[in-house]
Every structure is written in structure tokens, then in C-alpha cells.
């Protein structure tokens, strides 16, 4: 705990994005605190991914502001930063885990180079050190060290996803965006990945924004959640509260539609 924990890490105010006449997302406001995991849930087309892309500077919103507290303690509007600063932030302080690992990895270079890329991007020029850190991070995401020179193409879906996570965490980011991180994985692999994510988040004190349509995933890893429908946030609260005592009719429908095995 330090004094910084009293201030939000990310402040989102009235963010909206339209695609022509259609609403991508509208009027989204929230604060994200250090060490907090926020889940954004909702059905397909509800604007989850649009919102995530707006937040992570991958898609410029039409309205609202997104302010991020830098390591210097300064609140900065991410869209007012120079492109160089923003890209630097993206590859040091932030991480982005794609649903499809192939989008977030370089499929034609080895696992070690994938993990080491961010280190080299911030100026590390010692091969032995970079490789050592890559092997260390592969271990932390449960990939055997003898796979360090294999290309991600030779990895299973679950391993690729874990590699993508390692690649993002190697620079010790403070904020990680995840777009359906467990999508496309079978349930047992999903469970292990969630376990891993949960322990990494706790261990590193990460903040994360996780987009998912899977309420079970949200329940397991998030502290708070936002429910979206038709581009708007219809309910927002602590995860357990939202799932156990949903207020909005749509959330009630969503919760009741979980298949009980």
C-alpha cells in the first residue's frame, strides 16, 4: 500500500463512439483503482470491445475523456499525449491481451524473442539478460524453459495465450487490457489460465480491464463489473453483488441464463 492507492489509475468520463448512425458505445464513465480488476460483460454487439479499444487508445472515441495516472503521479488525458508517448505507454506501462493469440504474438519468431521484444523496445541490448528474463517469464506462465526457442506456431492454444500474457507482463505494466482472454479455450485449460491470471494479478498488483461474455470468468477474476447492453452501461457494481443480486432486468436475464450443470 502506498499513498498513490488513494487516487484512481484510470478515469473515464462520458466516453462514446459512434459508427455513422449506429452507437458503438455511449456515455461510459468509471474510475479504475490500482490493483483492481474490472470486468465488462454483455452480449455480442453490446459495445464491449469498442469500449475496450477506446480505452486502450486503439480506437479514438468521439466523445468523453480518458485520463491515466502515469508513474510520475500525473493525470494525463491519453488522447492528448503525443503519439510517441502513447506508444511508449502501450509497450511499457500497459498490456493488451488479444482474444486470438496470433493477433498479439509474432508467430514467426521464437517464444523467447516474443517475450524479449518489449525489453528490446525499451533499450535492453544484452542478449544473455534478455534471454534470462524471457525464460523466467515463460516459467511464471508455466511454459517449460526448453520451449524458449520454439515458435508460437508449435504451441497449443492455451500455451499461446499464456505466452501472450508473459509477453505483456515482462515490462511490469500497471494496467492490462484483456479481450476475451479465455475465448476459444476448452474449460480445463480455461480454468488453469484463470488461476494463473488471478495469481499474477494478485502478485504483481496489476489493474486489469477484462472484456468477457462469460459470467463465470468475470466472477472468478474481477472485483467489479459493468454490464453493457446496446452500447450503454446498464449496471455497475461489485461482481458478487451484480451476480447475486442483479437489479437491471437485462442483468437478471443474463444471470438466469447461465447453464447450471
Amino acid at each position: 500500500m502506498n499513498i498513490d492507492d488513494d487516487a484512481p489509475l484510470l478515469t473515464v468520463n462520458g466516453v462514446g463512439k459512434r459508427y455513422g448512425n449506429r452507437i458503438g458505445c455511449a456515455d461510459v464513465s468509471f474510475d479504475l483503482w490500482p490493483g483492481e480488476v474490472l470486468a465488462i460483460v454483455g452480449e455480442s454487439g453490446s459495445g464491449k470491445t469498442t469500449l475496450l479499444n477506446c480505452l486502450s487508445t486503439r480506437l479514438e472515441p468521439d466523445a468523453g475523456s480518458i485520463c491515466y495516472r502515469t508513474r510520475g503521479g500525473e493525470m494525463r488525458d491519453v488522447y492528448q499525449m503525443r503519439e510517441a508517448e502513447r506508444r511508449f505507454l502501450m509497450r511499457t506501462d500497459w498490456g493488451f491481451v488479444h482474444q486470438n493469440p496470433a493477433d498479439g504474438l509474432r508467430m514467426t519468431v521464437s517464444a523467447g524473442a516474443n517475450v524479449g521484444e518489449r525489453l528490446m523496445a525499451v533499450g535492453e541490448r544484452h542478449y544473455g539478460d534478455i534471454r534470462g528474463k524471457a525464460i523466467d517469464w515463460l516459467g511464471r506462465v508455466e511454459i517449460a524453459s526448453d520451449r524458449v526457442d520454439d515458435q508460437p506456431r508449435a504451441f497449443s492454444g492455451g500455451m499461446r495465450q499464456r505466452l501472450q500474457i508473459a509477453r505483456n507482463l515482462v515490462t511490469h505494466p500497471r494496467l492490462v487490457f484483456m479481450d476475451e482472454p479465455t475465448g476459444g479455450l476448452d474449460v480445463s485449460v480455461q480454468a488453469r489460465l484463470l488461476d494463473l491470471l488471478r495469481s499474477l494479478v494478485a502478485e504483481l498488483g496489476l489493474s486489469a480491464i477484462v472484456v468477457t461474455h462469460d459470467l463465470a470468468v468475470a466472477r472468478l477474476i474481477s472485483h467489479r463489473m459493468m454490464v453493457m447492453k446496446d452500447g450503454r452501461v446498464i449496471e455497475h457494481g461489485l461482481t458478487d453483488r451484480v451476480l447475486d443480486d442483479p437489479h437491471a432486468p437485462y442483468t437478471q436475464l443474463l444471470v438466469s441464463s447461465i447453464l447450471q450443470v
Partner: protein
Amino acid sequence: MTASNNLTHEGAPTMAGATYNFAYLDEQTKRMIRRAILKAIAIPGYQVPFASREMPMPYGWGTGGVQVTASIIGPDDVLKVIDQGADDTTNAVSIRAFFQKVANVAVTTRTHEATIIQTRHRIPETPLKSGQVLVYQVPIPEPLRFLEPRETETRTMHALEEYGLMHVKLYEDIARHGYIAKTYAYPVKVEDRYVMDPSPIPKFDNPKMHMSEALQLFGAGREKRIYAIPPHTKVVSLDFEDHPFEVQKFSEPCAICGSRGIYLDEVILDDRGGHMFVCSDTDFCEEQRNEH
């Protein structure tokens, strides 16, 4: 009647029967290319786009280099053209003949006599002097191309000096081979700013680019880019702290002239494994033989 009979050296086509201008390109095109060259010299290592023209040769045969040479050549210039270090290979012979015909300039194979040297794959062994211009033919000017296919993205990376990816390539080489296995087109950083592809010269020649007294111009015809290294410019080959840049070393001397410490070509002599190593720079080899 040969075409050169109808050409003047002042750069203006004669009225009667002239089919092209001095040095083939029209004056407007030359001005456009010279502007690109000036910009390239002003920003060492930066790739300047230019409106590359169709030349009477296929892409990949040096259309970029020929356009640069055509734009800078004057009637008093002495031209040398090398291909793989040799003056007598097809490409070198035909480009030399081309400029003899369309510009009526003096040509030479002697490195020290030439004012303009157009090259593919080599920097001459004889150190270049102030006042000489080395024109490279470049197939792919973008050093990041095979790592990042999007041109918009590579331009942003150059603009923001994001060169981590280049080291990913070198990392990958060491991981796979135990050393940096790239032997040609070895990426360099120019004047601490732009990462540049030195065209497919052997990395043996990379140190010669550093603080060179001659002006170095690079022309990529198909990719429509010109870049430059002005004289006395810092050129550093990329490497890792624990895997420093090294040039090729040859254990034996040239089989013809006996020189050491120069770049050698392997020549296969028969189908029973017979081979010898000879100077890749034919002019240098000849000079050495004449001296001894």
C-alpha cells in the same frame, strides 16, 4: 548514326533526331530526383520517396541506381560500375555501356580514377576519397520490411525511433544459430538516428561506410526510395553488448594476387570439390598483381 552523335553535353536535346536527353532522363525528372537526393543528404539514413521512372531495364537490375547516377552525372564525370565487386559482369558492362551511349562520359574500371561509382553488392577495397560518389542499387530499402509488413507502421516506427523490432531479428539469429548469422544487408544506425538497410553488401563492407570521405547515395527503383550517407557520417552496425558486430574473416589469401584482409569470392573449379578464393574486387586484384 549513333544516338550520342546527336547529344549535347549541356543537357538540352538537339532538335534533329534526338530521341532522349543527356543521360537518358529528361531535365524535369532529374530535378525531381536531385531534390530527393538533397533531402536524403540533409537527413542521413532517411528514406525519401521519389517518383521512380520506367527505365530501359527490368526492376531488380539497378533501375534505382541508374536513375540516381543519371541525375548526378555530368559530361566531365568518370564512371565506374561494379556488380559483385567485378567490372566485367553482365550488369556492370551493360550499365557502363548505357551511360557511354546516353551521356557519352568517360568510363573506367580504376576505383581511384572514378568520380561516380555505381555499385551492386560491394564497396571497393581501395578507400574512397573526398569528391567521389558511391551509388548503390537497392532492392529493398526498408530494413524492417520482413518484420513488419505495413508501410504505414514502419514509417511510424522510423518517425518515433522505435527500433526494438530490429533487435528481435538479431535475437532470433543468435537463438537459432548461436551468433548473428546475417551476413549481408546488415542493418546500421546512421548518425544515431535512422536505422538503415545498407543494400545487400556483405557486412564485411559495413565498417567502410563509417566516416567515409565519399558521398554515398542509395536508389531503390521499384520501391521508389532514395536515401544517403553524407561524407564523414557516423554509421554503426547494430549488435548486442554480449554479441558484438563482427565482419567475416578469411583464413587464406586471394589465390591470384595474394592479398589478405579483403573480401574474397569462392570460385568452384571442377566437379570434384576443387575451389579457390579470389578477390571479389577485380580492380583491386589487378592493381595488386601489377604492383608485385
